[in-house]
């Protein structure tokens, strides 16, 4: 077991460590820091102690593996409704940097129906994959956990990549956990930053925690490979597409039959909205300030002119004015559009957790003291029922719609 050691003689009782502990495990007793059982050995206090009184004792790991057998950076090529998801291309762009830093190959991992597979593989190559590991089977027509997890586990066991990246979408987050558990390796969820430690060559995975209030950088112990992460869509830029790029395709069969797939998809009910929150470049959101279900009318009108999706705060969802699919925030969706227009939303910490990383935030609120203005790029203090229709009209005029 690991232990956090506090040197009583070195500790000056400065209390710097107490507030940095994300788990509240440190307190002062008779002028000296003490740690309790809430400690998770995250090491936050170790870094902050000005006199190096805190150290962490780590035990040797039980398993040892030959890490040199693992090489190359893999990106899971996700697709839905006959289209490769944008996040896969973004990850190929970021994966390129990681592969360059490691001096290895960038590869795609693709599972698809034979009718579509070749085209998807070529797209992955155009976005930078030097090699695509492809498993073709009609079982991949609609996403299901079992065949996806099976194909990934078999490929990873056989070809031993050093790093595997998945989009942090409902698909990626559904089966990456199964893959990691089956392989008994680490998986870092929902990363927003990736880089290679120049010395150790380990993958540094940075992600928000506590609703975005803190960031954590996570490594995998060297005796667990591959290093795997799911990565948030829209964090990394889209790389250049170059259809003249060449790459090889390595085909492997799927060792699974339809009878072995435990779940059955009976139906898919498409969302009613034309623009989807996850993909939206622009989102217009309404909060308690819209006052009722009909209050979303001006919000929708503005969204329509801009080709935007409609979002909402929890207060609006809980009041029953709009469905949960629209909720942005800690208990709703995390979005990262280019422009986020918050109308009648106060900007609570939980709402911010879902939209704070939007490129431009516009706030429209009656109350000049509303916290949303603190994070807004542009704000207008005023009644949304006046401001929003004016915006709609003005955009209509400029866009000629």
């Amino acid at each position, binding site marked *: 077991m690991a232990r956090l050691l506090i040197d009583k003689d070195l500790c000056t009782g400065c209390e710097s460590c107490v507030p940095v502990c994300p788990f509240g495990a440190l307190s002062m007793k008779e002028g000296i820091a003490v740690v309790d059982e809430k400690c998770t050995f995250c090491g936050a206090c170790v870094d902050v102690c000005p006199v190096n009184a805190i150290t962490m004792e780590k035990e040797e790991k039980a398993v040892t593996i030959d890490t040199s057998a693992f090489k190359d950076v893999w990106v899971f090529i996700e697709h839905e*409704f006959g289209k490769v998801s944008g996040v896969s291309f973004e990850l190929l762009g970021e994966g390129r940097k990681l592969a360059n830093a490691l001096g290895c190959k960038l590869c795609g991992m693709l599972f698809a129906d034979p009718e579509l597979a070749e085209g998807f593989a070529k797209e992955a190559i155009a976005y930078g994959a030097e090699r695509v590991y492809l498993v073709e089977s009609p079982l991949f027509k609609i996403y299901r956990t079992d065949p996806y997890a099976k194909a990934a586990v078999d490929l990873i066991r056989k070809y031993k990549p050093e790093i595997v990246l998945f989009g942090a979408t409902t698909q990626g987050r559904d089966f990456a956990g199964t893959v990691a558990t089956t392989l*008994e390796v680490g998986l870092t969820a929902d990363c927003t930053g990736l880089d290679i430690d120049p010395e150790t060559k380990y993958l540094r995975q940075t992600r928000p925690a506590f609703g975005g209030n*803190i960031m954590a950088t996570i490594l995998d112990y060297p005796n667990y490979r591959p290093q795997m992460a799911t990565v948030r869509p829209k964090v990394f830029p889209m790389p250049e597409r170059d259809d003249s790029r060449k790459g090889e395709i390595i085909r492997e069969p799927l060792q699974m039959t339809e009878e072995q797939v435990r779940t059955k998809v009976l139906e898919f009910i498409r969302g009613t909205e034309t623009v989807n929150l996850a993909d939206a470049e622009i989102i217009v959101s309404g909060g308690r300030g819209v006052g009722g279900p009909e209050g979303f009318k001006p919000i929708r009108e503005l969204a329509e002119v801009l080709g935007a999706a409609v979002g909402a705060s929890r207060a609006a969802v809980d009041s029953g004015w709009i469905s949960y699919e629209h909720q942005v925030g800690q208990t709703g969706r995390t979005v990262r559009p*280019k422009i986020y227009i918050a109308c009648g939303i106060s900007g609570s910490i939980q709402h911010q957790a879902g939209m704070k990383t939007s490129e431009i935030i516009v706030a429209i609120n009656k109350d000049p003291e509303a916290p949303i203005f603190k994070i807004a790029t542009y*704000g207008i203090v005023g009644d949304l029922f006046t401001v929003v229709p004016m915006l709609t009209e003005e955009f209509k005029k400029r866009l000629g719609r």
Partner: protein
Amino acid sequence: MKIVVCVKQVPDTTDVKIDPKTNTLIREGVASICNPFDEYAIEEALRIKEKLGGEVHVITMGPPQAIEVLRNALAVGADKVYLISDKAFAGSDTLATAYALSKTIEYIGGADLVICGKQAIDGDTAQVGPGIATRLGIPQLTYVSKIREIDLEKKKIIVERLLEYGREVVEAPLPALITVVKDINEPRLPSLIGIKKAAKAQIPTLTAKDINADENRIGLKGSPTWVVKVFTPEARGGGGEILKGELNEVVPLLVTKLMETKFIK
């Protein structure tokens, strides 16, 4: 029908504030709550039980004070609760946590249905549910927003999953594990009698030995990932421009500024 619900105690992030001077998290006085998604998990279990009969067991792994979330579960009507607590679990990441929880479920005799929250709001990983399902060798249905049907005779469950582009209706054989989103129900409040009963209840604590956990698979030893740094994100370069003046001036000004970004097509 035996349902096992996994719940986690988390810090109430409503209270989490950043110290503007040191740029660190102020933890003092931050209350601990039941992970909000897990309240929906408990509620759904209770509703299934009310319809089909059976028992609801609630388990949590955490430090001794995590017992509070179990008392709340008892107060709303859970039949049995277990605290899994042992110093040997400290430092567990999602792989190790899912392992310990799956061993616990096996120890208490398995389940026809396991319910987890979509994710825990402290770590937001959403990995523990799929991890448990994989360890138990049962199918998983994540992001469930509605249970359409449970057929005990045919041993199957049909649910709706809330995905990016809509809702997917999926069928799976039982036993299975589901993770639930907020949309699924409206959790009830405990009754006064429930609270009184829960306050007096003896709650069993299970150690790593009790659940036959392999010591190499739990705690820091069984955790492949390792947090090396925790820091406060850079403050958003906001606190931007409040456009002041008459609305018939500021609205066109805002539109101009937004049009200049080229994001509007």
